[in-house]
């Protein structure tokens, strides 16, 4: 390469390096910052932080749950479920529950049946235990009720009763008051909407910011372009560095 050609190439590279660097600087800073946070995601427990900002959920295309109109009235305590969230007396339970089949109170314990489990709660919503198919006499619970002071569960034509949820007896002739959904008072309906807001883990949102997915396909292309920019900067920067090194010898 002649000296003139080399100088021309050097000028071109410096031109590209400067312009690409300026254009990409904000995006590269964005990726560096989000990348750093992702590196410490576990230490910061970002996945345990849930974000439910309505505008962000709307941006993601995740629609909120519609207002629940019914719930289980358990001796004055209201159990309301929407999607996989359940609230007891306006407090969202830590335990995610789907497909709630009934809720009753027996012996100061609230029993909540899903299709496959029986969850025991204190009246304040603290979980006491979860009884699954290994403890229950059925694999699927169709209904939950009270037969006097006994807990009753039904699967198809079979009815089982128990005093404490641990030992069960089949009892086809039991007279059972089965748990039923009841219309929610309007005030509780409104409160339930706020309680049951959908959310996403913060770690997921930051990962989407880093990858550009948060902004759809265009965001991904911008991140890809930033990657190419970083490549150009690396090559041009390295070339200029080596050129200067050679000159200084």
């Amino acid at each position: 390469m002649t000296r003139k050609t080399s100088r021309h190439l050097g000028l071109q590279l410096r031109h590209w390096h400067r312009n690409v660097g300026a254009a990409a600087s904000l995006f590269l800073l964005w990726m560096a910052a989000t990348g750093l946070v992702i590196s410490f995601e576990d230490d910061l427990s970002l996945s345990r932080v849930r974000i439910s900002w309505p505008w962000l959920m709307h941006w993601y295309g995740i629609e909120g749950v519609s207002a629940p109109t019914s719930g289980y009235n358990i001796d004055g305590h209201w159990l309301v479920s929407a999607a996989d969230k359940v609230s007891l007396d306006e407090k969202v339970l830590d335990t995610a529950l789907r497909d709630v089949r009934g809720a009753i109170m027996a012996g100061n314990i609230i029993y909540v049946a899903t299709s496959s489990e029986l969850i025991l709660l204190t009246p304040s919503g603290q979980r006491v235990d979860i009884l699954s198919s290994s403890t229950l006499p059925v694999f699927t619970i169709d209904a939950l009720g009270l037969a006097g002071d006994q807990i009753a569960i039904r699967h198809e034509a079979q009815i089982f009763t128990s005093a404490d949820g641990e030992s069960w007896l089949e009892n086809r002739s039991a007279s059972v008051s089965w748990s039923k959904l009841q219309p929610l008072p309007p005030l509780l309906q409104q409160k339930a909407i706020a309680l049951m807001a959908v959310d996403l883990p913060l770690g997921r949102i930051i990962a989407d910011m880093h990858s550009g997915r948060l902004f759809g396909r265009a965001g991904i292309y911008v991140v890809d372009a930033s990657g190419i920019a970083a490549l150009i900067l690396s090559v041009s920067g390295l070339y200029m560095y080596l050129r200067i090194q050679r000159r200084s010898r």
Partner: protein
Amino acid sequence: MLRFVVLLMVWCLPSLSVADTVYQKPDDFLHETFGATPPAPQFIWLDTKLQQSLTQILGHAYSQLRIRYWRINGHTVWILDEIGKEFPITAGFVVADDKIAVARVLIYRETRGDEIHIPAFLQQFVGLHLVDNKLEGRVDGITGATLSVNAMKNMAHAALLLNRSIP
């Protein structure tokens, strides 16, 4: 865009996690330990003092007020749940002579880090015991599964502590 939304909806359904892997049913773990007829479960209620001890181990109170266990001939079996990154890991532990005799991942719900179910990793738990209520023994971590490894260690620690707390 529709595919994007559908993928996100799947992500938002923790109870229907596509990552649920049942390595061994809890019932089968009991039968493996005790034979055809496991003993009836007993319960330990977590009073304030025990919850405080568990909080020190887990970093939070245990998610239930009572824990069931099975005991025969000095062996106790504990089936515990602890969140790794986002979802609970269900693990079984056999405690004998105040030491972990068996550790098993029963149900894994996270999307990654399930290397902890590998027998070679779990073998490290055998012999773990408590010294001054601290877990004694070395368990090497797994790259990319730090939270799951920590959850298993914490559950082993909790199982040993609970074993000491039963009459």
